[in-house]
């Protein structure tokens, strides 16, 4: 198991950062917890189908790395994929397939390697411990999520940041669609275009209804961000539908998705 990390430009006010350290998060006591690695930072522009090495970051004598979206000249929705790699690995300048990330695990301990993924406005920030699993980047998939993290207090803006990483070779850059629909009537309210290897950023708006978000084109990680002009209040991802189930998770997830996606046009 190994994971990509990511950064994107949300808008002209919100900074996106990641923090990672050299300690493997979850391990048995007898395993050594400190790991040697570096990260390569890759970008696939909206209309390109190759990955370009934008930067490399090394720990040098430090235990941690802090990487901010403000360090890079990005357009809104462009996605930097941060790829952990062995310190001795020499990256090419250009790839048609994104390099597989190094596993930062040292044994079979159950929790994924992750990073602090945070968003900041001025002095206010919010974060979660997250990742984009390499396995997910190898499949086209579909996407379904719900609206529980949307907040309705006056003055609050809710954003969906939909992260899509497809690490395999892409022949042509297709335009995909993510939809917002009523969870009750299944009626479609709005559709948004996106492409592979980008962050689709949506100001969700107000609906007097329970809503759902779906794409029949690709999978993705949905991050919900609640903020006003001065403060970030909340950043969290919703559970993938498999997490509603204890056993046979992926069978149950496929039943759930098919029940919903067959009704959602």
């Amino acid at each position: 198991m190994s994971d990509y990390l990511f950064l994107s430009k949300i808008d002209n006010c919100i900074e996106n950062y990641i923090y990672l350290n050299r300690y493997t998060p979850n391990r048995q006591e007898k395993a050594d917890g400190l790991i040697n690695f570096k990260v390569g930072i890759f970008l696939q522009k909206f209309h390109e189908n190759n990955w370009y090495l934008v930067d490399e970051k090394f720990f040098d004598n430090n235990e941690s790395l802090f990487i901010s979206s403000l360090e890079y000249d990005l357009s809104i929705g462009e996605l930097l994929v941060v790829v952990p790699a062995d310190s001795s690995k020499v990256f090419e300048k250009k790839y048609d397939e994104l390099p597989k990330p190094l596993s930062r695990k040292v044994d079979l301990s159950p929790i994924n390697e992750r990073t602090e993924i945070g968003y900041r406005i001025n002095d206010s920030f919010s974060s979660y411990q997250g990742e984009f699993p390499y396995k997910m980047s190898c499949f086209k998939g579909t996407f379904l999520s719900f609206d529980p993290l949307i907040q309705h207090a006056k003055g609050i803006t809710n954003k969906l940041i939909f992260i899509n990483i497809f690490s395999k070779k892409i022949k042509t850059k297709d335009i995909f669609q993510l939809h917002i629909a009523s969870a009750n009537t299944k009626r479609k309210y709005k559709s948004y275009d996106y492409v592979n290897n980008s962050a689709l950023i949506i100001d969700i708006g107000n609906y007097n209804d329970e809503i759902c978000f779906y794409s029949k084109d690709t999978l993705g990680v949905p991050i919900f961000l609640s903020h006003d002009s001065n403060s970030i209040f909340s950043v969290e991802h919703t559970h993938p539908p498999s997490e509603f189930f204890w056993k046979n998770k992926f069978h149950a997830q496929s039943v759930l998705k098919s029940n919903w996606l067959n009704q959602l046009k």
Partner: protein
Amino acid sequence: MDVLNNISRLKQKIQFDPFSILESIPKFSKKEISDIFIFRFDGFDTEFIAENSLALLTGSKILCDHLLLFFDEQGHFLKSERLPTDLYHKKISIKTLLDIEKVKLGSFVHFVRYSDEILKEYSSILKETTFQHRGYTGFKLNDSLAYSYVHGNYGGIYKKHQNNIFSVSRIRQKFVYTPQVKLKPGFKYEFFFVSPNKKNIILDFYKVKNNKKDHIKTFKLKFLEICSLVLSFDDNSEVYNVSWESHLPVGRCIIFENNMHTNNVFHS
């Protein structure tokens, strides 16, 4: 040789499995499992977002009762509440259910109940399904506009009858957990941990720097007992990473990170 390899693989799997090995045998698997959530009212408000599991599975509105069981800081049962709804997700203000003058900190678990008619109607789909209640908790400072949400973390709690609850959590060899968190000068950090295990748990916190660890504090916890480690850093403090050790393969804290500008809550 194959038999020996299989035994060795099974032994290794068990060493890292956070749950009872019986859970991998369908006959013994439980029908509903809940994470453990915390509430706090010491200057904070708490909201819970409950999932209507069968409605989400089928994609259709189904009436359910959300059943919440509350426990105090020491893990003693406080009360249960049933809340009917046909919503896919219901936001529940926890302070409306508890006497927040008497109880400032505690935990709760969540189950979902359906009528016999509904259980009969969906019996074929339910036969193959074990629901897991993860939900989300939101915490906000009393004067704040909005919540900081964190999804369900870890629990493995099931209910047998009345309000008796049990756990499929198991203790193994000692595990270390080091979150990817940058502790910052000028911030206060609170690490909340609820024991999911029926046996008493020992939890050791360490500061970690340059791959060396210094002991901070040890907690001994009974089932569902909560501990909190508080670390405050002034603007000139030397900061470090934090680790904790226990015999739980998944021993994760809920972390509150606060200063005058920020209320950040996340699971480790």
